[in-house]
């Protein structure tokens, strides 16, 4: 059975890109563009991994992670951000990996594989 990834990314073009590329890798991807919808999805589906952006309108990625930790501590989380600097924010340390967005998706794909034990 395909492993399920919840992808949270407010940029529509990037959301589409990640969804397609991760699906191609063999994952079942649910892509959403804000944290509120992500939390609703988490209530209905047992995801194996979450990839989230940080700077998003409404609830940001760090607030989302805090809430996820309260719901499901066991789920691996990858932060995928355009900002290098958030790495220094200790709130992001709760995530299992931090990837700075890049035109090459190799690093993101590798981290996902590692965390899912593929």
């Amino acid at each position, binding site marked *: 059975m395909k492993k399920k990834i919840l992808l949270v990314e407010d940029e529509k*073009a*990037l959301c589409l*890109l990640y969804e397609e590329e991760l699906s191609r890798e063999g994952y079942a991807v649910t892509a959403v563009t804000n944290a509120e919808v992500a939390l609703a999805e988490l209530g209905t589906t047992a995801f194996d991994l979450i990839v989230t952006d940080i700077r998003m309108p409404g609830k940001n990625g760090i607030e989302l992670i805090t809430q996820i930790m309260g719901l499901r501590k066991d789920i691996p989380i990858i932060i995928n951000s*355009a900002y*290098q600097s958030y790495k220094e924010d200790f709130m992001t340390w709760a995530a299992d990996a931090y990837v700075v967005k890049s*035109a090459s998706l190799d690093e993101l794909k590798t981290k996902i594989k590692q965390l899912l034990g593929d």
Partner: protein
Amino acid sequence: MIETYNILSPDFERDAPRELMLLSIISQSFFQPFSLEDNLLVILTALTSGSGVGFNRAMLFLKQGDRLKGEMWLGPRSAEEAGLIWEVLSTPGIGYVEILEHNRALVSKNQETLSGRLKGLVYAADEEGALIPAYAACRKEILLVREAASEPLVDRRFLNVIGVDEFLCIPLLARDDIVGEIILDNAITRTPITPADIKLAGLCGLMAGNYIYSTTLHRKLLDMEKMAAMGEMAMFVTHQLRNPIVAVGGFTDQLLKPDIPEDKKRRNLTIIRDEVRRLENIIYQMGHFLKVSLKEPVYFDPGPAIAAVLSSPEILTKSEGYVLNAKLEPCLPEILCDPTSFSEVIRNLLDNAFDATPAGGTVSVRGYRKNRSGFVLSVRDTGRGITNPDKDQLFRPFFTTKENGMGLGLTFTKRVMDTCGGKVEVQSRAGKGSLFKLIFLCREKELTT
């Protein structure tokens, strides 16, 4: 019963004690938008003007790094010039603005002026065995020097420049640091310096020292704010540029794969084109923000400018599906602002109002007089409103709640309003809408015949 008095214009009688007149001139000048140099010139003027302490000449050294450097020297070069200057300065009703204008010429960089002769004098500010004038600064003591020619502690080069036998050295202290020194003399009238003169000049020195200190601190603070803003800008630009670059790179990689169907190829190319346009727009907006310098505000009729913005193609397009209404009171006064910036500010506020309001909502523009000298232009929307944490950050550069906003519109608005002496007020309730009020200085329209 309560009586109120204006802080900035204590009108002293002409026969008021000269000490009060002097302190009034100096302290009022600190509240004017003068530069540090101009305000120091006001202090020198006060020390040498008829209504001030009444020294003939005042020389200013400022500390730069660990050196005291001759900066300005104010005073007449001859008895004839003295008569002319003092006549102007003792004109009844003359204020510091006029004095400043008059004296700027006297301390111009022209080598023929006294200031020109002073420029070459530089002393170590904290050296053991320093000579006068630096000696006073090193000891942090006021010195009255008499028979200077026979005093071995006086630097000979300085003596040649000043050319008098009696002078007063006032070190300028800020907390415990030396920031400069003022030298005063009576080269023209040759009257002796009295203990009362010394006390009053010492008081001026304290004010000057503290003024230099607070101005320097303020400049440092502004620099730090600029640096912080630059850091924030760099971070914001990185993010703004990285997202479209990732999209362009990612979708290009997909295009390079052999099995890509024709419709997906076309879709990817469209996304790439859109993202490149977005990059172009980011670069354009950044360039615009960085280079934009505000023009001097002038009084003008805001009516035509508001009408032009409301009927511009971009606002007409944006307002489709909304109720846009405008109500301006008849006979608008003239408002003080740069007209170009004014139009841009209105456009920004309308843009924000439409962006924050769901289709079908209402955006209202109102223009009315608040009082005799204040005109309010307001933009109200029935949109999502602003949350309390966001309210505190509204005017911060690069703060935005929009998906593709740059966060520069309200920063620009605040800058424009600050430049023209106006104000921005914001009222907002989350879920109910926002009201932005711009309050301009205004005056009645000038009648043209």
